[in-house]
């Protein structure tokens, strides 16, 4: 079959034909491209260890493992029509994603459906999506503050005190309300969220967002029960690739649209006769 790619007038997005993962994003308008590998991973939740009895729970994010990929290869189905181009990726029976491009849209849409997270192995799981690029980010990444100010974050660093980092993953997670991005001197990769999530860049050139979690232990911080809901969640991320100087123009307006989308109301037949603006 043909190459695994989707394209509109703004973007061309390539996928690995063997594994089905996102491989590269090309911004045709700006003449730039960036290898981007995206996958879903999970961190094993801590049940307490020799260093500390602290377990992962509703309040406490304390992974006891590195990120474990949900799937090394994904099943895919490509759908190309005049109004939309989609690659459906099936990572597992509880993890899937649709990667979508529409005509006129200068961003890539990722719609993920996750859950119920399996816990038959008695391990709590905190699920992330991670984007890996060759960008030389030198430990720097950016998150928004309640949709307004963009704050620079630096790995293993706090601007107002000397940090002794004891949690290399959780200690570098920050709130993401509408967007997170990484950049080098030329390019910026931005990911917009449709809800508040935790996010980080625990490796240079990578950014990740926590998308779902299911835990089996109480963290003894007052909740009194594990966060053990077998929920299915669906959400969207918008991915933008731009030159650094032009990036904010793209992500500011898009972030507003994502958190306050239009409301859709239906009526049988002709419906009310509303005066059109």
């Amino acid at each position, binding site marked *: 079959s*043909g190459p695994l790619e989707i394209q509109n007038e703004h973007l061309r997005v390539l996928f690995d034909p063997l594994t089905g993962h996102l491989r590269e994003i090309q911004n045709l308008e700006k003449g730039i491209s960036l290898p981007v590998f995206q996958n879903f991973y999970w961190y094993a939740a801590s049940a307490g260890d020799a260093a500390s009895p602290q377990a992962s729970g509703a309040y406490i994010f304390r992974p006891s493992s590195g990120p474990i990929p949900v799937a090394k290869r994904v099943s895919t189905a*490509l759908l190309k029509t005049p*109004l939309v181009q989609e690659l459906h990726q099936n990572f597992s029976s509880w993890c*899937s994603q649709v990667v979508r491009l529409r*005509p006129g849209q200068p961003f890539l849409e990722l719609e993920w459906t996750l859950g119920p997270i399996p816990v038959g192995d008695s391990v709590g799981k905190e699920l992330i999506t991670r984007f890996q690029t060759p960008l030389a980010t030198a430990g720097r990444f950016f998150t928004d503050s309640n949709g307004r100010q963009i704050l620079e974050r630096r790995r293993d660093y706090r601007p107002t005190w000397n940090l002794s980092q004891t949690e290399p993953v959780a200690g570098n997670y920050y709130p993401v309300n509408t967007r997170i991005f990484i950049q080098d001197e030329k390019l910026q990769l931005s990911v917009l969220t449709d809800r508040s999530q935790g996010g980080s860049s625990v490796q240079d050139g990578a950014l990740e967002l926590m998308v779902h979690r299911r835990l089996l232990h109480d963290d003894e911080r007052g909740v*009194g029960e594990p966060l053990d809901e077998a929920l299915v969640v669906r959400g969207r991320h918008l991915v933008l690739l731009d030159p650094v100087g032009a990036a904010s123009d793209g992500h500011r307006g898009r972030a507003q649209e994502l958190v306050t989308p239009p409301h*859709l109301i239906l*009526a049988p*037949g002709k419906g*009310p006769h509303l005066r059109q603006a």
Partner: protein
Amino acid sequence: CGDSSVLREAVAVAQHHDAVTGTERQHVANDYARRLSEGWASCQVLVANALSLLGGSKDPLVFCNALNVSVCPLTETSTHFTVILYNSLARRVSWPVRLPVNGTCYEVMDPQGHPLPSQVSPDPPRTIPYPERAGGAQGELLFQAFAPPLGFSTFRIRQLSRGSPQDPPKSVLEG
């Protein structure tokens, strides 16, 4: 009788840090969800009343709360319906609309009565199990809608034929 204060109070309660971060107990999470659901239902009545007043019509309005999982009884069973898009932003937006349908071909008219490009997209090949859709619709009607700043746009949709959606122009299944 619609009432926005039900949702206002539910959202106010949900400003508690446990509701914002999801660190509440399960029965409290259920209560937050119940309050928000009741608040939204009450607001829907208010919005429907306002639109009926503005449009001079007593026809019922429908809110499909499960559109994110492609479930909407109205669009799945009707051959003629209207989509109203309300934009709360202070600038024009263009927004992709996806509606679960069971027909093959539909005509979508924009607010000025001009036809809009649309298509019925069938399910991609079902040889891979992915939980994309919860409903029983055979396809999804896609079109690019738009709405003015802080305003409404109405799109009238009519089914032109019955039957199963056609195959997409190009559909490739990878291992």
